[in-house]
């Protein structure tokens, strides 16, 4: 390399370095949450979900679900088939969520006893999903614009460098007064999330126990939600995850809800 070229490279580094440092320092809470929201998870995904509900006495109830998700660009469609316990076997649930801010999800449930697909309101996002510690909203991708985000600090958590973000909902009546999330730098994956109730009291904690890179995507596999006020825990374990297998659009239809897996 000639001296002239070396000088040019050094000049470029000198020009770029402050902006690189500045841009890393400059990341706001909103930008970090946006990166989590935008983290690619593949065009489609399917897997088997086991949800274990554990009460304070250690008694456990288990729900098993086979789920399929597909990104359609402006919307995401998800279909879930319940396989256990026996009294919900063959029940299915379909959700269409939209990127458009403020547009409500569309939801349907198929009840085999009624042999009918029923449209249900997605308004009750604060309802708990199948008696678990997860609300419907906890399970969805909350739009970053729904909250005000603030970077509290950066710290190591579970051996990973994390951003700690506080999010306060714009909606006054929302079920949580604030949440605090530990986000792994560069992976843009949440490691832990604390939820505070309307009175500002610590309500529950979501801990991610396992995540893996499948194809080129970081996928959350095992997580646990612990309600500290009721000492009740829900474990979510996702297995047999397959990404970008080309699930056809026809999987997300009334036909499949009725037919089953």
């Amino acid at each position: 390399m000639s001296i002239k070229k070396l000088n040019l490279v050094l000049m470029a580094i000198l020009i770029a370095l402050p902006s690189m440092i500045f841009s890393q320092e400059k990341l706001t809470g909103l930008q970090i949450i946006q990166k989590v929201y935008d983290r690619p998870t593949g065009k489609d995904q399917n897997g088997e979900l086991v949800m274990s509900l554990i009460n304070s006495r250690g008694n456990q109830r288990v729900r098993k679900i086979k789920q399929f998700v597909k990104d359609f660009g402006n919307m995401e469609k998800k279909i879930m088939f319940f396989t256990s316990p026996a009294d919900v076997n063959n029940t299915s649930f379909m959700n269409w969520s939209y990127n458009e801010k403020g547009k409500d999800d569309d939801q349907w449930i198929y009840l085999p006893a009624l042999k009918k697909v029923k449209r249900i309101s997605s308004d009750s996002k604060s309802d708990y999903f199948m008696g678990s510690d997860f609300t419907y909203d906890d399970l969805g991708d909350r739009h970053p614009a729904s909250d005000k985000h603030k970077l509290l600090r950066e710290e190591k958590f579970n051996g990973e460098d994390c951003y700690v973000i506080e999010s306060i909902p714009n909606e006054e009546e929302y079920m949580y007064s604030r949440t605090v999330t530990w986000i792994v730098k560069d992976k843009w994956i949440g490691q832990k999330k604390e939820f505070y109730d309307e009175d500002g009291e610590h309500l529950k904690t979501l801990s991610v126990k396992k995540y893996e890179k499948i194809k080129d995507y970081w996928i959350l596999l095992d997580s646990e939600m612990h309600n500290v006020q009721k000492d009740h825990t829900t474990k979510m374990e996702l297995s047999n995850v397959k990404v970008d297998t080309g699930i056809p659009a026809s999987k997300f239809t009334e036909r499949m809800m009725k037919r089953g897996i």
Partner: protein
Amino acid sequence: MRHLHGKTISVVFISLLFATVLNANSVDLSGYARTYAGALLRGDNDYIIQNTFNLNIEHSRDKVAFKANPYIYHYPNLELDIGLREAYMDIYFNTVDIRIGKQQVIWGKADGVFITDIVSPKDLSEFLLRDFDEIRMGITSVKLDYYLGDNTFEIVWAPIFTSTQMPDENSIWRPEMDFPMAPVFDNSKKDVDMNIKNSEVFVKYSRISSVIDFEIMGGYMWDDDPAMHITKKINPQNNQLTGITVTPRHHRLGVGGGSFTSTVGPLVLRGEGAFYYGKYFNSEDMTLVDGVIEKNYIHYLAGVDFTVRDIHFSTQFVQQAILDYDEQIKNDQFENTITAMAFRDFLRETLRLELFSYIGLNNYDALVRPKITYKLTDGFTLLLGANLFVGSEGNFGQYDENDMIYLKVRYDF
């Protein structure tokens, strides 16, 4: 009640044996066992005990599947009631599904009201008190569905007519029949002959979308409920009525209608309506030949579901209106009914309190059904409930003496 026959036993036994043998080849077995004990609140506090076993046998391969749903009702001191609710095969193509055999076909968006949901006839052995999957009867038919995105075109051809299953003659659920004297029944014309000309055809187009889900349907069918043709014997000397013969007979019925459901914020709105062509109504005019009048009528509803403070509400207003009404018709020109349901889950969805009610506005009668359901563990449910009839006449008031409380214990597997 359909009694046990040796042939039926054999069929069920072979089915069960077949299922067991095939179990090794991934046949899915599911179902439930249930004990139901109910006691009337009036009179001698008569009680009913019913044990039920319901089995679903399913198997599927890539493009084909089959399902059989045998059931057994056992009543102490009575013979077993055994039957096949469904037994069909599916063939799946890319955009077409074909289902052949005995099957329940459920249409419409209404809850607990049958307007466009007229393909499968009803089993009214216990009025409307059985679970809905037990009220719907399977029909032997061929069903073809063609799918185009979220659009579905469906056609059902039923070569064999199945009528409404009415309660036994001595049942407390036998509906009132208002005759000036005890009639003699002539059932010679009750059956519809099995031939192609007598088959039923139903068609439906449905679509689900972000904005609205809807169905449009039509049917050329037999009225599931027979018209009661009446022949009178009159003494020519004194012109006095000396006898009545009732001849139940099914008539052809044309039906066209539709239904929709949509969400507006927290509300789920629904509507359903149908026009029925050629229904025979009974007349109050005893001089009328046959005692029946043919009229068209419409049947429709509007309903809404919503949630307030974790209580889920669902209510519907239902109206049946006879067109070109004749004052001699026994039915009212307009018959108005409201259905109302409210439920709330507790203890992480293991405990549910529910109240469902049909309210008849013409006769101020009602059926009120409070229920407490508790899941002792997954798949094991205790249900304590009551059926309370209000009023003295009308669809519900006529059963005023049949108020009852009951307990159901159910094990799902």
